[in-house]
């Protein structure tokens, strides 16, 4: 209240204004951010049109709701958040404490005692002599008044890091077949980005828990420069949560799959009407009777899995025209088994003649030179928030005249924490100088 009388109205108004603006921004951001968690982001237009009408679609599109977090208005709101706000002090509760002690002692002795006390118990004092009295001033963590600005600055730093990343970095993907190497990757926008080295996948494997749930996806990668493996980057295993970084580009385990071809012969159950069928590892085919079929797994040698048997086998899934799904194993060398399978499941007679298939590993490829700036910003934010809430600027003054010592203290916040500290100082001062007086 005092401050309104003291100064002209303009800066106060500005002050409330900017603080109110920050509040407004924070709450608006909180509410609007919800939109993007409800409306799916970045889906293809037909999907939206199906669920919401044409009119809503147009409206939402204009408002940028389908890619909300990158829309102009949302970014503007975020950017406004970096406007510095004056929020420290003045209106926060502050505290001034004053105590006087009267003693009959030589001033210079009192002075030395007081200096020693502040030095030992609080902070190094600054000493000034004026008008026949001596003034000591000591303070702790004056810089924490800047904490609030550091928090706001940190938001700017994070933005700068994000911008650096989006201009000079990229996010891409690449599939590498086991035993092969690539020299370029595919960006999210479908552009081919050349690497100035090659990266090869020596091996990809999946391991499982006893429950059958996947335990680990692992690729063994080698970096090649001029077709030669780079020492230290040869046969490096990477798993989810443990990527490989080379020349600022990081490769993350992200997916896997198989590429290849399989050959089948399909006929009626009595063996008539034989037709050959060739099927990609990742696609499905329609059989003459209208069923759909695709390959789940295959092997060119069944013996490790079914001792006593040999030759190629495929685990396939068939969707019958009646809507049933059957998963069956068929072989190259056991026509009678295939016939029985067809009979039992009511499927056409299918036999596997073999194929070749390779595993590939899918890697996410990221280059982000701005990420360190982002971490710097995060660090500043955490440190700033900590300092802003838990540290205070504490000051102590001591004035010494002949026969009297006056001590004053001030803390810009957390007076409850400062009170005992100050009381202790006063107590110590009293003890020190009264002990001296008795001598």
């Amino acid at each position, binding site marked *: 209240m005092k401050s309104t009388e003291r100064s002209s109205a303009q800066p106060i108004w500005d002050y409330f204004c900017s*603080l109110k603006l920050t509040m407004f921004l924070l709450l608006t951001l909180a509410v609007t951010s919800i939109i993007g968690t409800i409306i799916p982001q970045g889906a293809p237009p037909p999907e939206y049109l199906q669920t919401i009408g044409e009119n809503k679609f147009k409206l939402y599109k204009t408002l940028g709701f389908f890619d909300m977090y990158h829309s102009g208005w949302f970014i503007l709101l975020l950017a406004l958040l970096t406007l510095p706000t004056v929020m420290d002090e003045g209106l926060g509760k502050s505290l001034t404490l004053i105590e006087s002690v009267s003693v009959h002692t030589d001033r210079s002795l009192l002075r030395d005692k007081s200096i020693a006390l502040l030095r030992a118990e609080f902070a190094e004092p600054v000493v000034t002599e004026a008008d026949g009295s001596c003034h000591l001033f000591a303070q702790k963590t004056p810089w924490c008044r800047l904490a609030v600005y550091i928090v706001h600055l940190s938001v700017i730093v994070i933005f700068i890091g994000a911008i650096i990343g989006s201009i000079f970095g990229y996010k891409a993907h690449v599939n590498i077949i086991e035993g092969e190497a690539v020299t370029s990757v595919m960006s999210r926008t479908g552009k081919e980005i050349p690497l100035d080295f090659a990266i090869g996948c020596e091996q990809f494997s999946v391991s499982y828990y006893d429950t059958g749930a996947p335990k680990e996806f692992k690729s063994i990668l080698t970096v090649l420069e001029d077709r030669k493996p780079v020492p230290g980057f040869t046969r490096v295993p990477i798993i989810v949560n443990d990527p490989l970084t080379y020349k600022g580009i990081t490769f993350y385990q992200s997916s896997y799959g198989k590429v290849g071809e399989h050959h089948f012969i399909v006929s009626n159950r009595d063996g008539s009407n034989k037709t050959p069928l060739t099927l990609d590892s990742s696609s499905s085919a329609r059989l003459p009777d209208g069923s759909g079929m695709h390959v789940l797994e295959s092997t060119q040698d069944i013996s490790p899995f079914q001792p006593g048997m040999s030759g190629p086998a495929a685990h396939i899934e068939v969707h019958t025209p009646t809507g049933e799904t059957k998963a069956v194993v068929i072989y190259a060398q056991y026509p009678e088994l295939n016939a029985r399978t067809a009979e039992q499941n009511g499927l056409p007679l299918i036999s596997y003649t073999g194929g070749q298939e390779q595993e590939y590993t899918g890697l996410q490829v990221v280059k982000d030179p701005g990420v360190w700036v982002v971490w710097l910003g995060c660090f500043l934010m955490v440190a700033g928030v900590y300092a802003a809430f838990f540290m205070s600027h504490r000051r102590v003054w001591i004035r010494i005249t002949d026969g009297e010592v006056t001590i004053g203290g001030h803390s810009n916040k957390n007076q409850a924490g400062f009170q005992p500290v100050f009381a202790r100082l006063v107590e110590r001062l009293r003890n020190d100088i009264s002990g001296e007086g008795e001598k």
Partner: protein
Amino acid sequence: MTSSLLFNTTTIAYLASMLLFFIFLASRSRAVGTAGSILALVGLILQTVAIGLRWKESYDIGVGHAPLSNLYESVVFFSWTIVLFYFFLDLKYKHRVIGAFVMPFALLGMAWAQLGLNSGIEPLVPALQSNWLLYHVVTCFLGYAAFAVACGISVMFLIREGHERRADISGKSIVAAFPASRILDDLNYKAIMIGFPLLTLGIVTGAAWANYAWGTYWSWDPKETWSLIVWFIYAAFLHARITRGWFGRRAAWLSIIGFAATIFCYLGVNLLLSGLHSYGGGS
């Protein structure tokens, strides 16, 4: 001794503690209040042991990981952090009755976990096999716990303040056992002041993990976005505090809204929306 038996005992201790706190409110007998606190402490200790035991059990069955990997484990942990934070405030500021408005949250969590959630110890999916899991989840939930306690305090504030305004606090009324509204208001602020930096750390460790695990520190997935919404709300609360106009009722409401958003971020996102964190809600 199995962890699940200990968790059941914990639940009963929290129930008894809560009931004693209610009796304490009505009777204002100090002994009952102390008993309520002691039972809460017993529960906390049992639960601490139980969490440690479950951790060990996961190693015994060969899938060893910190017990923070699914909804059951996170609800149990949330409940633990709430009681822990309550004791922290109690030690520092000595307002025992707040327990009457905090223990219900802890009890609710434990009861739901024990009765309604699948408590099997499951192996970690590859995406969660990282030390970041521990740092990230612990910081997030400590922040949440502070907000839960702040919410309980805010409810007390609204009740007490209403009575103060109507000047009907007779010595006998339950409300007379509450701390003065001024103190509750201050405690609400103190709790949020601690929770906010923790949530900030939780979000930053989440971002650090996301960057380490897949090279994107922020992808606007629903959990990320909602944690940011929660962060915005409490940031607004803390800013609001300084204008002086936002002490009292409005601050209390903002704290309650903030906690509602926190709960949505925690449960709503896992159960209703999809995203990176949805495995957290599985089963």
